[in-house]
């Protein structure tokens, strides 16, 4: 009969509370970062997968200095495996609901390299700071800035934005 070394050192109830609070805070950021990378369907699925993994490994995740970054890595690996079959998709908003959105924008975003698209969306579509993006993505803010600049330039060229 084996013992239960995996039983968390804190009481289970305390762990539930701690993880719930963490998940509430982490889930939107994970979802934004992964949707920006892989599209709506795979990105959301990857975020869910990462959170489940977060709970499964909570005894380790709880002590990490950047747990969201760790879970982002798990979600990224998951999404990478899914993305080949389920292509990243950025849907076109229905015209009757959001007629003001540039119709060519989703396709232009889809055509960007993954990292550039992710950086552009996080910073310019979701309003993250460079530091916030760098923290979750596990890169320097200069790297984020670089991706943003390159991505914006490509988007502007693709959409014919000159002003």
């Amino acid at each position, binding site marked *: 009969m*084996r*013992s*239960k*070394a*995996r*039983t968390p050192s804190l*009481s*289970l*109830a305390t*762990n*539930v509370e701690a*993880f*719930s609070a963490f*998940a*509430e805070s982490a*889930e*939107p950021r994970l*979802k*934004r970062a992964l*949707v920006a990378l892989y599209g709506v369907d795979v990105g*959301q699925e990857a975020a*869910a*997968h990462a*959170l*489940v*993994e977060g*709970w*499964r*490994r909570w005894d*380790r995740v709880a002590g990490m200095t950047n747990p969201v970054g*760790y879970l982002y890595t798990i979600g990224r*690996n*998951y999404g990478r*495996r*899914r*993305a*080949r*079959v*389920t*292509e990243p998709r950025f*849907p076109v*908003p*229905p015209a009757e*609901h*959001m007629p*003001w*959105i*540039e119709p060519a*924008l989703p396709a232009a*975003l889809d055509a960007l390299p993954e990292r550039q698209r992710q950086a*552009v969306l996080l910073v*310019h*579509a*979701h*309003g993250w700071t460079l530091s916030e993006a760098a923290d979750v993505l596990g890169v320097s803010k200069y790297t984020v800035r670089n991706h943003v600049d390159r991505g*914006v330039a490509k*988007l*502007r060229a693709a*959409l014919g*934005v000159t002003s």
Partner: protein
Amino acid sequence: VSSPIPTLREYGEFLESLDTPLDIDALLAVEGLPSAAGLVATGTLLADTARDLDVLEPDDFEEVVDFEPAGGRRVGRRRWLVAAAAAVALLLVVGSVLVQRAGDDTKTERPAGTDSNPTTTDAPPPPDAQAVAAATGFVDAVDAFDADRAIGYLADDADISPMFRSVGATNGEATRVELRLLFSLLQAQGYEQIVDPAPNGHRCTGNGTSDSGTRLRCTFARDGRGLTDTGTYAGSRLWVTVRDGEIARAAMYFQLEGFSAEIWEPFADWVATTYPDDVEAMYTDATQREARLTDASIRLWERHTNEYGGAARDYVGQVRSICWSTKQRVAVEGATEFYDESWGRILDDALPELRALPRPAHPLTDPYDHAFDIAEQFAADMRSGNVDVDVIHELELIPAMLDCRFHGPS
């Protein structure tokens, strides 16, 4: 701060409006746990559960492993129930937080065609018998690749386009003709769909109702032995909406964890290398992300699938078998329930057997160039009590070696 791209901020808001709540029941099913709704129906209050957890003895958790799904045999001992409830409550509490948040974000009307992940947080009412019968009959027909029977369940205006998306087949106009071709393609690819009943014993379970009809979620497993013996991908689901006894909408979701890396990509690379002239006929474009649905394509898929499997299939099958046996040893002989020295020694025992397998020259066996070195590192890490997550991730990406990393999903 204005955006350098016109309407990009608004598009970001649109993307946020598409956030869907987590499907906790589906996650529980993947984890092999019963539906949270079933647990709540027992009347166990989460607050009571949490309070009781503090008085549980460590051995109580032993019984969580063996607990039966809701609706199974009646449990006599309270502490068993509490321990069982705890396991589900953990996910339920976490899920509720996420569902509540996401629910706040989903009040914007979603565009047509994006509602492929129906989710409920409360126990939905049981679906009527007519809906269950239609859904079960349809899924049985899908299982049997019986297009005529499946089509017989469809409403005239049925939307079956979501069935095509997750299997890497172009959906075209998702007509009934294409459904036949889809089934033929899946058969040509060598897949069998294996009945995988829901944890409560029902094939199809209710997932709420809407103006468009009664939604049900049906489960099945997919077996990928055609391309290579990489085993069964359980946890796949088929969502159907039944209206007036007919299928109004069907969406198929394959549990693809590991599938793309283990099967789809190596096969695509092999086709591109060995039969470059066939790529255009088999796939919709050079990215090889989607299979083309034509008679000619299906013939090529069948021929190349058979050729591709061959000796590699046997080799991968043997690796899987050894890892599976090793995992069983850990379950029986492991001193703890987490990575430790005893687990490391058990994996060490398996390594000579793995290394001794004669490996055929085949693209599918390329990942095994370093696979056993990684497994050796993992064993050493477990023996030293310092497991590196990156090593686990490396190991789980190697076909058929999921069981050799023992537990925790990839």
